[in-house]
């Protein structure tokens, strides 16, 4: 069954706005998706019906919040096909999830942490800091700006040194949209005795993610890229990995008992969820995943691929446009990053916004190191979602054609 885009758009109130006589065309979903009324209603229900903390409070509000909080964790577990609720930790975002593991891991000096050279700063800097602090070595395998991913050989060679203890890489690149062969990479990592941390921030909203296959040790993602509220993310970790971590943020709810010299840590995942949580955010996040499950990830994938193929085909006709990553749209998920020769991408983004109400993203997309390495100028990124239509894609293409022709 296909996607009923018109029906879906009704769920997103901000799409009904009228900016100077034009409906908004939101193409910055790789940064953050829009929020459906189902998520907003779930969050508002928390604040209007039972605004209290969970577990500590024995009153009616507290009991309701505790139940919904636990239910939200179950929803995430089900969506990821994780074995247990206790393997899901709520965080503020993918960045915090990665930092949690990076600051809590105990690896021997001289061990190698292996990442791709195209990681978002959130999956680069925690490891840079960890390596500087702990005497570990940070090494990279290449993800070139042109064409499909061809860095598997170099990835394998690093693993064969026997020194790699952790691999941390993206599922789908937030710049080029390329998806890595994660199953094979996880299998290789485990074969060589390394843990695998999967940054699924761009992957989860657009492709099926099952934590049992590819069986990564850790998986992190952000709800704000999956129709959920900002300030919410989750970290999945295998039980034996989570219990090995020493919590770096401690306080209320992370311990069962304490005195002035010691404490008894709470079981997982509570030991990683310090202080009062973002209850509305957690409840809204569960609503977001339920919304996504209702729409159907296969439908999402197909719809975004069709739009991406159309835009790619049209942009390929423009001689001044250079697409980053694989030329084949089917290999780029919902993302299309490109450079227009002679036009600054920041200026292009403003022109698209002011002339046609088309919202895109320009710059280096928090991948400074990669852009420097391959000597690339900042690019324009278009990222699609379930509420984008063919009409919007045509408007984008038409406007770009006109800009390239006249500017």
């Amino acid at each position, binding site marked *: 069954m296909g996607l009923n885009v018109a029906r879906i758009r009704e769920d997103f109130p901000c799409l009904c706005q009228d900016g100077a006589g034009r409906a908004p065309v939101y193409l910055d979903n790789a940064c953050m998706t829009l929020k459906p009324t189902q998520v907003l209603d779930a969050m508002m229900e928390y604040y209007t019906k039972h605004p209290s903390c969970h577990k500590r409070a024995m009153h009616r509000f507290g009991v309701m919040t505790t139940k919904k909080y636990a239910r939200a964790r179950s929803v995430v577990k089900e969506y990821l096909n994780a074995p247990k609720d206790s393997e899901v930790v709520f965080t503020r975002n993918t960045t915090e999830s990665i930092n949690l593991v990076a600051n809590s891991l105990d690896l021997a000096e001289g061990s190698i942490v292996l990442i791709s050279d195209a990681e978002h700063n959130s999956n680069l800097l925690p490891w840079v800091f960890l390596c500087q602090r702990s005497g570990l070595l940070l090494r990279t395998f290449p993800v070139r700006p042109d064409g499909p991913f061809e860095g598997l050989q170099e990835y394998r060679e690093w693993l064969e040194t026997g020194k790699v203890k952790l691999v941390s890489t993206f599922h789908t690149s937030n710049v080029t949209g390329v998806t890595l062969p994660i199953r094979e990479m996880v299998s290789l990592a485990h074969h060589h005795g390394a843990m695998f941390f999967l940054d699924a921030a761009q992957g989860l909203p657009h492709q099926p993610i099952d934590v049992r296959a590819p069986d990564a040790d850790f998986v992190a993602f952000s709800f704000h890229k999956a129709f959920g509220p900002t300030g919410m993310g989750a970290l999945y970790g295998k039980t034996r990995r989570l219990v090995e971590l020493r919590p770096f943020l401690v306080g209320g709810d992370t311990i069962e008992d304490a005195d002035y010299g010691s404490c008894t840590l709470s079981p997982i995942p509570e030991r990683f969820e310090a202080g009062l949580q973002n209850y509305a955010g957690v409840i809204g996040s569960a609503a977001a995943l339920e919304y996504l499950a209702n729409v159907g990830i296969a439908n999402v994938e197909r719809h975004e691929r069709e739009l991406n193929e159309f835009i790619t085909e049209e942009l390929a006709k423009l001689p001044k446009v250079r697409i980053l990553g694989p030329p084949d749209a089917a290999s780029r998920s919902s993302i299309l990053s490109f450079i227009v020769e002679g036009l600054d991408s920041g200026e292009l983004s*403003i*022109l698209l916004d*002011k*002339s046609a109400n088309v919202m895109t993203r320009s710059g280096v997309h928090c991948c400074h190191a990669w852009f420097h390495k391959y000597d690339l100028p900042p690019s324009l990124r278009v990222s699609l979602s379930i509420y984008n239509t063919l009409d919007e894609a045509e408007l984008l293409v038409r406007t770009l054609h006109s*800009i390239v022709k*006249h*500017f």
Partner: protein
Amino acid sequence: MDWGPRPVSLYRVFTRATPYVLLFIMAYPMLALLGRMGPPARLLAERLNEGFRKSMEMIERSQILPKQKCLISGRLFVLSPPLAGLFFRAFNLVVLVLMWVATAAVAGLACTLVL
């Protein structure tokens, strides 16, 4: 692969590229004559042409009030894309010429006051 040039400093554009372009435009009739003369004169004309082209490129690449340029161009685009494009391409040069005029006016005024 060449992904395009980088922005240049406003100082270089103001003090080198803009005066070169203005002088080139003023001297164009003479340069056109040069191009019809013997090889050495023609070579000189070609080099001066090349300098003009590079100066114009520098001016186009410089970041002069980019947001304002794009805001106005974007609004013009709705009325007429060709007009918006012309405005966009001419914006930097017009602003630089106005800066030169303003600088000359201030310098003239300062001289007058001193004298």
